[in-house]
Each structure stands twice: as structure tokens, then as C-alpha cells.
């Protein structure tokens, strides 16, 4: 559970509020998706959970990160290290650079279990082979002693997953695990994460900017923008009836196969704001299709639409009603 987390970076250009008050909860075995544009604070949120923010310039200034009743923020760095890799594991974006090119796959896989499970060399080696088999690397026994450069991108990502799951963590943070891979491999990796999740009962935080990826994987979705949660809702509800103009924009930006050729694809106008110099009003206001004077002046409230659905917008209820109407229209057309 993350409560009102704020991570700021001190830069020459002023304080960058990379993550500014994000709150969410994740139950055991659940999967939550975090989506948003580049620079919206997705990755920083998760680095904060792992306490991997470089200090200085970064600093977690506020909030609680409660993991299984432990406040991660209050732990000493040695205690955090015992949690990292063992109870919370992480998969990184780019499998090409996330493995040490100089060490054998076996060495890197063995390091985790020797460190956290107190395995002997022989045990760790056997465990490494077993993990490679679990993530579907053929001929694991002979490949375990290879170097990373002998593996393809998809295989390296499998190795990363094997490493992350070696100690059967309770929480797996996947930071854009499929961005660097092509679509077929992407589907395989996602399927793998899904299967392993149900096998080990791991909770997953899936960070991505690909709405297609989160749609099939998650129970809940958080939409982030400029370090803030713009909308949080169960996956199905977010896709069918979004209550935030930003989310609507994101959903409309997904290319539709039925889209007429030659016509421009939809995009949200403008660029994400500079988080070091945010205006007092709504950070999305300059790009919003229904912005009004109120949006420039006042920061929007976090509106509770229903039990599980909340949206950061002055007109959340109106947008929600709009979405319901559109949905009804679509059904009527069909």
C-alpha cells in the first residue's frame, strides 16, 4: 500500500515534483497497472517503493510505503537490502543492458539466491537451472553458463524474470517489461508473467505506456500525469467509462484498426508539462479539450465517482456521464 507518496528532485532548475502525492493499494495476488506518458512519474514511484532513488538529488519527502505491515521508508538501508530481490523484485525496461555483460548468466542468477536464501554454490546452480526452465529457456542446463551477449532480447528478459522470481517475491515490479521487445515476444513475456503470477501468487505492479498491455493483465489501473494520479479505476470500467479528459485522450490515441487510411490519427495536443514549473491550476489544462477558466485558477479535486473509481478533475462527474452516454450510443449503433 502506498499512501500520499511524494518524491522530489532538487535540480538547478528548481524542485522537480516527480511524484506528488500518489496513493494506491494492492492486495495479495493482484495486478495493478500504472500508465502515463513519459516523465509522468511512473518509474520514480516504483524506484521509491524499492528505495532506489538516488539521494541526493532525489528525496522521498512524504508518504508511507507499507509493505506487508512494514513501513519501507523507516527501514535502514541494510534492512531494505534484505527485502530487495527477496520479497520485492523488479524487472527492468531494457533487457539488453540490465544484465552484466561480463558475468555468466549462472553467476548472476546464483548471486540472488546465495544472498537471500543462503544457498550453497551447488544449490544455487541447480536453482538457477530450474528457474531458467521455469521461464521457458530451452536446454537450460547447457545455456546457464552462457554470457548475456549469447542471448536474444526476449531470452534476456526471461533471464531477468527468472532472476526476479528466484526468491519467490511477494511483489513484482515490472517497469515497462516489454517496451524493448517486438510484439510476438511481448505477448510471450506477458503470458509468462501472468502464468508465473498465478503459480507463485505474486502481486504485480505493471508499469507501461501501452494500454494494450495493461488491458489484458490487470485488475486496476492508475493513470498518472505530471506526478499525480489522474484517475484510478478497475480496468474494465476505466476502458468503458473513463471519468477524466486525459484518460479519454489516451484511449482515443490508441489506433483503431478500422481507422480510415490517410486520415490523421488522434493525438492529445501539446507536450507534457515541465514538472519543475507547474501552474497553480490543473497541470493538464493547457492540453484539455474542455478546460475552463476554473481549471486555470484552481487545482482540481480528487472526485470519488463510485467505490473504486476516482478521478482528478473539476468536471469528473460530467465527463463520466459523457462516457456513459457515449457507451450507450455505441451499443445503440451496434
Amino acid at each position, binding site marked *: 500500500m502506498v499512501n500520499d507518496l511524494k518524491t522530489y528532485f532538487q535540480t538547478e532548475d528548481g524542485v522537480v515534483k516527480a511524484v506528488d502525492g500518489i496513493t494506491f493499494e494492492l492486495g495479495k495476488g493482484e495486478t495493478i497497472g500504472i500508465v502515463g506518458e513519459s516523465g509522468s512519474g511512473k518509474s520514480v514511484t516504483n524506484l521509491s517503493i*524499492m528505495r*532506489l532513488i538516488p539521494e*541526493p538529488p532525489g528525496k522521498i519527502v512524504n508518504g508511507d510505503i507499507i509493505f506487508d505491515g512494514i513501513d519501507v521508508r523507516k527501514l535502514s538501508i541494510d534492512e531494505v*537490502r*534484505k*527485502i*530487495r*530481490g*527477496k520479497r520485492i*523484485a*523488479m524487472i*527492468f*525496461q*531494457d533487457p539488453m*543492458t*540490465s*544484465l*552484466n*555483460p*561480463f*558475468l555468466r548468466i549462472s553467476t548472476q542468477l546464483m*548471486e*540472488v539466491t546465495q*544472498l*537471500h536464501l543462503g544457498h550453497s554454490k551447488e544449490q544455487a546452480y541447480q536453482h538457477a537451472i530450474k528457474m531458467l526452465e521455469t521461464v521457458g529457456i530451452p536446454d537450460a542446463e*547447457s545455456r546457464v553458463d*552462457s*554470457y548475456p*551477449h*549469447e542471448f536474444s532480447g526476449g531470452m534476456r528478459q526471461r533471464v*531477468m524474470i527468472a*532472476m*526476479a522470481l528466484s526468491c519467490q517475491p511477494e511483489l513484482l515490479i515490472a517497469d515497462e517489461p516489454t517496451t524493448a521487445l517486438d510484439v510476438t515476444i511481448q505477448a510471450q513475456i506477458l503470458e509468462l508473467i501472468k502464468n508465473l503470477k498465478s503459480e507463485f501468487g505474486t502481486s504485480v505492479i505493471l508499469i507501461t505506456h501501452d494500454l494494450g498491455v495493461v488491458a489484458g493483465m490487470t485488475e486496476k489501473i492508475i493513470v498518472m500525469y505530471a506526478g499525480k494520479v489522474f484517475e484510478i479505476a478497475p480496468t474494465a470500467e476505466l476502458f468503458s467509462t473513463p471519468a477524466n479528459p486525459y484518460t479519454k485522450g489516451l484511449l482515443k490515441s490508441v489506433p483503431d484498426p478500422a481507422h480510415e487510411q490517410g486520415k490523421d490519427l488522434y493525438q492529445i495536443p501539446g507536450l507534457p508539462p515541465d514538472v519543475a514549473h507547474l501552474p497553480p491550476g490543473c497541470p493538464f489544462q493547457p492540453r484539455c479539450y474542455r478546460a475552463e477558466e476554473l481549471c486555470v485558477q484552481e487545482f482540481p479535486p480528487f472526485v470519488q465517482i463510485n467505490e473504486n473509481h476516482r478521478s482528478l478533475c473539476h468536471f469528473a462527474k460530467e465527463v463520466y456521464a459523457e462516457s456513459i452516454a457515449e457507451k450507450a450510443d455505441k451499443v445503440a449503433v451496434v
Partner: protein
Amino acid sequence: MAENVETVKGTSLWKDAWRRLLKNKLAVFGLIVMIIMIVAVIIGPAIIRWTTGFTADYIPSEGDLIKSFPPSAQHPMGTDEAGRDMLARVLQGGRISLMVGVISTIVSLIVGVSYGAIAGYMGGKIDNFMMRLVDIIYAIPYILIVIVLLSVFGGPNTPSFIQTMASTFGGGQALSQIFLLFFALGLVSWLTMARVVRGQILSLKNQEFVMAARATGVSTPNIIFRHLVPNALGPVIVYATLTIPSVMLTEAFLSFLGLGVQAPYASWGSLASDGIKNIAIYPWQLIFPGVTMALTLFSLNFLGDGLRDALDPQTRKF
């Protein structure tokens, strides 16, 4: 699926580098000369003693008026002014010279690599402080530091740990002087090593595998020495092979001035220093140690250059 597909064993970095090294003729020449030289200085003195009975300290022509004999079948390099066999002395001196080179380089490797790696990984204030310290030491002429170290700690003032080290190897004052030289040279030659390593670590530490290692809970010393230092090894090896000849040259220079290796031990530098006194009459006393040393230094430099090209193919010039 074919059953008897041969699994291709990936060529490791070292194999690859070795192949490239063998293509470089000068480097191969250097390598061969170095191998011969190392074998010669290790077993050479024993062979000479066994075949002719000469050692570096043995004076066969006791009583003769002139003791400096020119090269002959009996003395391939002639004798020195005390009548000692030059070949035996050159080989004996080679032992000391090569040892100075290797041991001082090891000292500089240990100090330089750990210092540079820690400074580079820690970054920020610690890095700044550590590297400014290096800059300050850099600013003082290193030869001055060595001379001061040798004259302050030389003679009876030698630190006791060096004296005990010398006596465990069965040597007295003169040997502890040589050990002092190892340390003095090692302690001034780590500076550039530290900079090289720091630069490497700086470019490596922001790579994702370091973050991945941190995310799996690996401790900081482990990240530095298990994950980062091996990645910086290429330039370190290259720089180390180039440090050996430069340290040897410094040693020769110091011995030539009479500050380094002292009798009864000899090094190429002190042999050359003895030889220069009689250069007009007995030129072989200078030529043989001089040529041997020059050959060795050239070979080491060729080898170092070859290794750099082999280990760092990106910067290879065609």
C-alpha cells in the same frame, strides 16, 4: 530438428583478444622476448652456476691485475671491473628489475583500482575529495616523492614491516632497501590508474545492470568489486602493462643515481651506472646491461600497445 547440431561455444572476450594480439607482429615479438627474458632471469643464474661455476658475486680472477675481461667464450658478456661474470650479473640484475616492475605495478593496481572504483561509484563529495587528493599528489614531481621516501625511510630508518618482510626472504639491509623501493614506486604510480578506473566506473555505474543489481539487494562493495571492476578490466590491464616498463625505467634511473638498488644486489640501472665509469676502456660493461634493458622495455611497450589494440577494438586504428 537436427539432432547432431554442434553447440557453438561462444568465443569469450579473452579468446577474441588473444586472436587479435597474435595478428600484431610487434606485440608477438614483445611477448616472445618477454617470455625468454623471464625464463632467463629465473633459471639463467642457476644454469650459469651449474655449467661454469660463476655467480653474480663470484670473483674468479682473484689476484690478476686487470680484472675486466672482454667478452669471450668463458664470459659471453665479459666481466666487470671486479672480475665478476657480466652475464650472471645481468641476469641477476634482471631479476631485481623485473621484480621492481611487477611488484610495484601490483601495488599500484591494488591501490589505484580500489581507490578509483570507490571514488567513481560513490560520486559526489566523496569523489570530489578523493580525486582532488590525487590531483595534489599529481602536482608534486613523483621522482621527488620517491627520492624523499627513499632517503627518509632508507638505511636504518626503514619501517619495521618492510624489514621483517626482507628478513623473511632471507635478506638484510640491502634487500629491505629493495622492498622499500617497491613500495615507494608503487605508491606514486597508482595515481593514473585511479583516474583510469574512476573514468571507467563513472561511465558504467549508470547502466541498468547496476540498478538491477541494487534492486536484487546486492551490497555496495559487492557491486563495485564484482559487477563494476571486471567490466573496467580491459583498460586496467592495458595500463598495467604500460606501467611495468615505466616503473622499471624509474628504478633504473634511481639506481643509476645511486638511490635505488645497492650492492651486493644489482639491477640493470646500477649495472649501467657501474659501467658508465669505464665506458671508454671497457664499453661492454655498459653496453650489455643497457641493451638488455632497452630490449626489455621496448618489448613491454610493444606488448602493452598490442594488448590495448586487442582488448579495445573500437579505438583500433587501421
